[in-house]
């Protein structure tokens, strides 16, 4: 029987990104990126250092997932969105504590940590950033 299993080493390597929204900062041109990349997409520099990004931003665009991939059935329907953080960095992520009928472009949101996927009854739990409406 199919069962989702979290890739533990991969998840562990990305904890700073998933728990603290750690992205990349190009020391050459000042561009910020999420996730952190080895080469700056703006100037091609390899001088990228980690940086914690602002936790607040606004929804640029979104989609409502009605037919989820396996492992996400419990959460359906859920919203995936592109968030523009306060410093202009754009982040792709899931929204939480919100009904699909409430979502609007421009909505102010803040980062929190929530369960993203759980590997059955005995596997590991993947926690990561999600965004919720700022009230």
């Amino acid at each position: 029987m199919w069962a989702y299993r979290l890739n533990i080493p991969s998840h562990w390597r990305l904890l700073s990104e998933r728990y603290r929204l750690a992205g990349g900062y190009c020391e050459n041109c000042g561009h910020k990126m999420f996730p952190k990349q080895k080469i700056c997409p703006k100037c091609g520099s390899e001088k990228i250092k980690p940086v914690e990004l602002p936790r607040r931003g606004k929804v640029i665009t979104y989609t409502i997932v009605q037919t989820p991939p396996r492992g996400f059935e419990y959460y359906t329907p859920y919203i995936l969105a592109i968030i523009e953080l306060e410093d202009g960095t754009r982040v792709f992520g899931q929204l939480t504590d919100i009904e699909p009928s409430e979502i609007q472009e421009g909505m102010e949101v803040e980062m929190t940590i929530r369960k993203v996927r759980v590997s059955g009854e005995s596997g590991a739990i993947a926690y990561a950033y999600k965004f919720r409406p700022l009230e």
Partner: protein
Amino acid sequence: MRPNRSVGIVGWGAYVPKYRITSKELARAWGKDWKKYAARILVEEKSVPGIDEDTFTIAYEAAKNAIRRARVDPSEIKAVFVGTESKPYAVKPTATMLAEALMIGGEERLTLGADFEFACKAGSEAMQAVIGLVGSRMIDYGLAVGADTAQGAPGDALEYTASAGGAAFVIGTEDKSVARIVGTCSYVTDTPDFWRRQLAKYPSHTSGFTGKPAYFTHIINASKKLMEEMGTSPKDYDYVVFHQPNGKFPLKVAKMLGFTEEQVKPGLITPFIGNTYSASSMIGLAAVLDIAKPGETILVTSFGSGAGSDSFHIEVSDRIEEVRNCVPRVIDFIKKKVYVDYAIYSRNRRMIIMPAGIGDY
């Protein structure tokens, strides 16, 4: 018990999920007469965790608020203890996840980290441990969290109260504190009033036994002994906070000890959000700190089944006014709510078993 050097609460924070279910809806789902079955426990509604929330995510929110109020760099916090009876993992500390998420102990994570269990007093037990570490000069700051997504079996009496929430306290030296913890007293006995066996999904309890030999005996003994050690009486306190398994017991034990309803009600939160187990008395304390004025005194006594109580004598200091409003208060969480019916509640609490291989949630 008193620490060797004076300690206090440097920052406090709470978190309550926004979803609520009314006790009337719970009674409806099981065909019970609400007036006969649930009205007398004085819990109108309870909080329900979101589908992606658990004890870690709740502890994270509460701790984040406490650290913001404390205005302490997380790298200076050298102990993080999470008291809970609903650990996401039976074996794997919630405290390490919290340290990672909040950078407690700094980049090197040089911090103690552990989860505590003592039914509903696991959070206050974590506070006691941090008080000991700070008071003995081993560390300058520690974080104690009480958080739970409380379990109550479907249809059981506990289902009317078992809720979700968390509270966190950064404890440090007195000079930085918003409230000094002057003295504490702990009292334990082997009392089988409530338990959950290994691998059991829901707790068991011995109905009427949970009152007199458990809740009332332990709270009364710990509170009386503390007041004796402090040389105080109920009239010396502006506020008193007890563990709150329902809305009725704290009022009753307050009366038995000689406190008035006016002293209890500011910290009596269970009627609005239910029993958050390890966070119950701690959220009550957080609610009192949200409104307390410099110079006021607070008596807090937790209760955990099995059984025991921790009692604290706390004196509010001037710094409280500086940090009070920098994060949401308990009342803000109480007001922010969305009602769900029993179907959504069952789904959020994962009471619905999905077919194998689908919705590994």
